[in-house]
């Protein structure tokens, strides 16, 4: 049957399993919004306060659900407002399809009103992008966009649809839900080699990243650790892959990682790197990172192999397949009592060297512990970027894959509100956001969205009145020159929450926090809790940027 381009878009999105679109209307997407109006019983649209929030929401939705997130924006400013959200999804390998309207084809290149070459703008931050020039091509392009977004290493795809394409008619037939392209799989020989290297190791260390969350193979990775008598360190993106309480899990490694996770990494003789890209925030000094160790690197993206850290054995493979095969191939790996003793010592040392917090009323860990006590395994926890993120990554007990959402690669302040909204919509669960007064300040407008959707969000602002993470670097590396990090703001967050139609409370000590959380975890809609944190609290331990384990600062 012949349908308008706008209708074809909606039909294709529905056929591809899209239940929710996050977006914001405007001049060049009016026809699409008209179809959304007409089909509102088949596909839900959530309007955010700003397109950036919509992009982060689609990202959060995808992270929490494992499905492709969809965001829709108008041309020009609508499209450019998506850019941070798209870049964020690109760096963290999150599958989203971003749809933008554009001016009609005959107005292209004339600097028409709200015309931006969004394809050009997003070239380096998408897996692929399209300008659709004919309505006949629309359905096929959208299907391919979904397919590319979810295949191999996932990522964002942008589809730019000029207004004339939305208006013109073309044949449409319902298509199948697309499947990802078949990914490369490890050969038996590669698996045998890897297994042999692991069997020879006396001190095996599994370095597990976001790829393990995407592949959903954290359980098998934990089994490999058990079988090989090895231990697991997680990158920030990999935090939800393995249950926080698993005895093999040493927690986050890297710049602000746990002492034991970093010490074990230094002392191991073999790193089994699974679904990681050896980010500089994880490795620090690259030469010292790998000195004297064998490294097995398995990743679905061949370009990551030997990119940042050269490996002894590189295996280009779909991670889930390789991990399952490896588990089956391992056989008897023996026990490594010396390694166990070492790990026990590292853990003991870690227990004796807790981060030195200043406040006796309310520390960052107090806040996180109080929340953690109340959350169920299935409740998503999102963070913003900065100290709030690092403390949460260190302390919060993540118990289920896809229930920890953070901006790892881009480190985009303002990510949290959109992401939490997306995760909440995807799971239907109460969702917690740990944010700071800085990061919350960037996209706090999305409180309006949480209110309009009546989402049970618990927003915890770790309010230290400064840009804490930058301040920490200024304290440590810039002679306490607090350039532009002392905010001198006078925002009354509880009043602000109320002005938005949400509930807001202030907590200056543990008792007040518990009272506020009692209310927040019983509420139907969004609750904002403004927690007073000392401005000089630091995230520790810390390995300085580009540094090695020897430079780790404990206090």
């Amino acid at each position, binding site marked *: 049957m012949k349908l308008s381009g706008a209708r074809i878009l909606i039909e294709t999105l529905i056929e591809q399993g899209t239940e929710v679109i996050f977006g914001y209307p405007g001049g060049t997407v009016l026809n699409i919004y008209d179809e959304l109006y007409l089909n509102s019983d088949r596909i839900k649209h959530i309007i955010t306060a700003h397109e950036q929030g919509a992009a982060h929401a689609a990202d959060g939705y995808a992270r929490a659900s494992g499905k492709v997130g969809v965001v829709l924006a108008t041309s020009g400013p609508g499209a450019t407002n998506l850019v941070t959200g798209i870049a964020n999804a690109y760096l963290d390998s999150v599958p989203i399809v971003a749809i933008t309207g554009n001016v009609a084809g005959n107005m292209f290149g004339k600097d028409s009103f709200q015309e931006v070459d969004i394809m050009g703008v997003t070239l380096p931050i998408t897996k692929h992008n399209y300008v659709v020039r004919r309505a006949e091509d629309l359905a096929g392009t959208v299907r391919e966009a979904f397919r590319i977004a979810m295949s191999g290493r996932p990522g964002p795809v942008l589809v730019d649809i000029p207004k004339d394409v939305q208006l013109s008619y073309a044949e449409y037939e319902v298509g199948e839900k697309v499947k990802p392209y078949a990914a490369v799989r490890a050969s038996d020989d590669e698996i045998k080699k890897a297994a042999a290297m692991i069997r020879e190791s006396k001190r095996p260390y599994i370095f597990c990243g976001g790829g393990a969350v995407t592949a959903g193979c954290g359980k098998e990775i934990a089994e490999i650790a058990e079988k090989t008598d090895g231990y697991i360190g997680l990158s920030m993106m990999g935090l939800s892959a393995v249950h926080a309480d698993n005895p093999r899990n040493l927690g986050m490694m890297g710049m602000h990682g746990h002492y034991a996770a970093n010490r074990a990494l230094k002392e191991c003789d073999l790193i089994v790197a699974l679904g990681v890209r050896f980010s500089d925030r994880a490795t620090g000094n690259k030469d010292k990172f790998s000195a004297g160790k064998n490294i097995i690197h398995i990743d679905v*993206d*061949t370009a990551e192999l030997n990119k940042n850290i050269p490996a002894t054995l590189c295996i280009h493979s779909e991670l889930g397949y390789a991990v399952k095969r490896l588990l089956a191939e391992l056989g008897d790996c023996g026990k490594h009592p010396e390694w166990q003793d070492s790990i026990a010592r590292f853990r003991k040392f870690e227990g004796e060297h807790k981060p030195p917090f200043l406040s006796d009323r309310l520390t960052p860990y107090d806040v996180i512990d109080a929340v953690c006590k109340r959350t169920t395994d299935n409740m998503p926890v999102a963070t913003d970027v900065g100290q709030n993120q690092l403390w949460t990554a260190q302390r919060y007990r993540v118990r289920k894959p896809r229930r920890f959402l953070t901006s790892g690669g881009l480190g985009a302040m303002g990510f949290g509100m959109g992401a939490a909204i997306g995760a909440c919509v995807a799971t239907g669960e109460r969702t917690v956001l740990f944010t700071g007064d800085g990061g919350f300040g960037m996209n706090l407008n999305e409180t309006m969205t949480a209110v309009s959707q009546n989402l049970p969000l618990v927003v915890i602002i770790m309010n230290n009145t400064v840009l804490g993470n930058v301040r920490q670097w200024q304290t440590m590396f810039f002679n306490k020159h607090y350039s532009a990090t002392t905010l001198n703001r006078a925002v009354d967050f509880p009043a602000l929450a109320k002005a938005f139609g949400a509930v807001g409370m202030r907590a200056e000590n543990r008792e007040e926090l518990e009272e506020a959380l009692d209310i927040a975890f019983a509420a139907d809609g969004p609750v904002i809790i403004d927690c007073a944190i000392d401005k000089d609290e630091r995230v520790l331990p810390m390995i300085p940027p580009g540094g090695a384990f020897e430079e780790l600062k404990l206090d």
Partner: protein
Amino acid sequence: MKKFIIGLLVTNESGALTRISGMFSRRCFNIDSLTVGVTEDPGISRMTIVMTGDEYSRDQIVKQLSKIHSVKEIKEMDPENSVSRELVIIKVRADSKTRSEIIDAVTVFRNKIIDYAKDALSIEATGEYTKLEAFIELMSTYGIIEICRTGLISIDRASQTLKDSGRISEH
């Protein structure tokens, strides 16, 4: 540092060239030359990229290029099993004293004079890299006024093609 020649088949669509050249600038790799033209299949363009780099950059470039969705086939050309050519037009200073010498050199190198003026000659030279470099060096003794190069193109020997010897990129 070595020279590498990479052959690519890419979909003939707007933006394909930008995707590829953008990858080089974004990841700080240098392109010595890049040529592009349509093939026997109008939907597919062929590119030849010449670059200088170490093993690391060669490995990364081939992998990163193969991730670009517009890239359908990619292969590092083997100098032993491929033939390469470049076309150069050189405008060289020539007067009554040097003209015949230059014409002799053009004949020996099997090049062609394509424009003749009182004070200058324009020479069409084709060949592989070393021949052209030698000729350009020789011409520089007479004074090169202007030079214009197409960049290298390269094709497999015998009946082998980029399609059947290259690897289909995975996405």
